[in-house]
């Protein structure tokens, strides 16, 4: 593990301990009240969800055209984080929606596109797990299509008339709401980087182990 890992993990843990205090002290939103506080978890995890999908796609393209196995390991690790942060997003979203919109789920463009992006990541992992030899390239192709979905998720709310809040909300946020949000976002980003590093390392060790086995046979 790199030297920065342990201190970064400690800082991340500390920030996760402080974040609830900041969120609790943030003012209540006038119409939604307490339930609006899910926002501080929902939005950062959704950002990480999209970030992971982009990393997975970009790494896959580089693997596909340059054949660098490190990019492949990065793509695999990122795909698992798409699924993880996707679950957080897709669970916190309906919890909020139940209070704010009165329904758990709505077949709105952004919700549908997010669910599809999450399903593509699950399909990616299934392919890696059960596809057998050669599935790394196939999975890279799939990840590329998954990445094409990301801008669609992001811009969809601005072009369709949907009930999901648009991307204009964050830049116009007053500081009392913005501070806990950005703190939470940085916390999630740190967690994201740490998890990605751990997962890539696991794949590196596996690759080294495979190489050792092969050299023993030879």
């Amino acid at each position, binding site marked *: 593990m790199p030297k920065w890992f342990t201190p970064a993990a400690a800082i991340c843990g500390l920030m996760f301990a402080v974040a609830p205090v900041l969120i609790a002290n943030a003012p209540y939103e006038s119409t939604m009240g307490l339930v609006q506080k899910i926002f501080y978890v929902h939005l950062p995890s959704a950002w990480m969800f999209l970030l992971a999908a982009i990393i997975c796609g970009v790494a896959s393209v580089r693997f596909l055209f340059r054949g660098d196995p490190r990019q492949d390991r990065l793509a695999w690790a990122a795909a698992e984080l798409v699924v993880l942060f996707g679950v957080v997003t897709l669970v916190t979203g309906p919890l909020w929606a139940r209070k704010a919109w009165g329904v758990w789920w709505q077949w709105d463009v952004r919700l549908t596109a997010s669910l*599809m992006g999450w399903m593509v990541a*699950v399909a990616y992992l299934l*392919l890696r797990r059960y596809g057998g030899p050669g599935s790394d390239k196939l999975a890279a192709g799939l990840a590329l299509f998954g990445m094409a979905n990301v801008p669609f998720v992001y811009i969809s709310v601005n072009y369709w008339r949907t009930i999901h809040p648009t991307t204009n909300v964050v830049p116009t946020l007053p500081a009392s709401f913005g501070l806990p949000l950005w703190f939470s976002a940085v916390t999630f980003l740190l967690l994201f980087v740490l998890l990605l590093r751990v997962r890539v390392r696991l794949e590196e060790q596996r690759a080294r182990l495979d190489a050792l086995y092969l050299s023993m046979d030879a």
Partner: protein
Amino acid sequence: MFARVVWLILRKDFTVEVRSLEIAYTTLFFAISCVLVFAFALVQEGRAPEGGAAGILWIAIAFAGTLALGRTFERERQSETLRALLLAPAARPAVYVGKLLGIVALLTAAEIVLVPLVALLFQAPLLGRPFWLAVILLTGTVGFAAVGTLFAAMLVRARSRDVLLPVLLYPITVPVIIAGVRATAALLQPEVDAGIIRFWLALLVCFDVVFVTLALWTFEPLMTD
């Protein structure tokens, strides 16, 4: 040169298929059984559920399409002809386009049977505006087949490919299916709103462009060992 390779591959697939008609018959029968299962499940006391026809038509196309895609490439795998095809001194994208057109032609044939069947069983005025329906079906089929051809070709070498094809294909093509269903449903309304149809058609064309471009771009590296 490109067009010639596309044409040769299309003609080869057509010749092979005409000899046995295996894929055409099985796909068609499967699509018809699919619609019948929906009819048994959903039509009660002679009354079809409102607005169900568009969805059922597209589900039948998607299911039959998956089957046809799997079979088309299984045939190439069994006799190792896909390898021969890739060894040929022809541009890989041309091979892809040839295969894609073959699948689109097959699915179009299936749709010619499916549309009247769904119209009959679900009492939907599907044939009221044949031109618009044909445009919607064609753009939707191209989008679905563009991804399907790429993935089916990739999966030829993978383990458990039969299960993996739908698993990979459906999440990616759901936008196409949604747009196709919405456009078809708009066509079935008593008062057709041309704006809505045009909107979903534009979306379908966008998906077609994105999917075909991505597939042409990645077919070469994906099919190289």
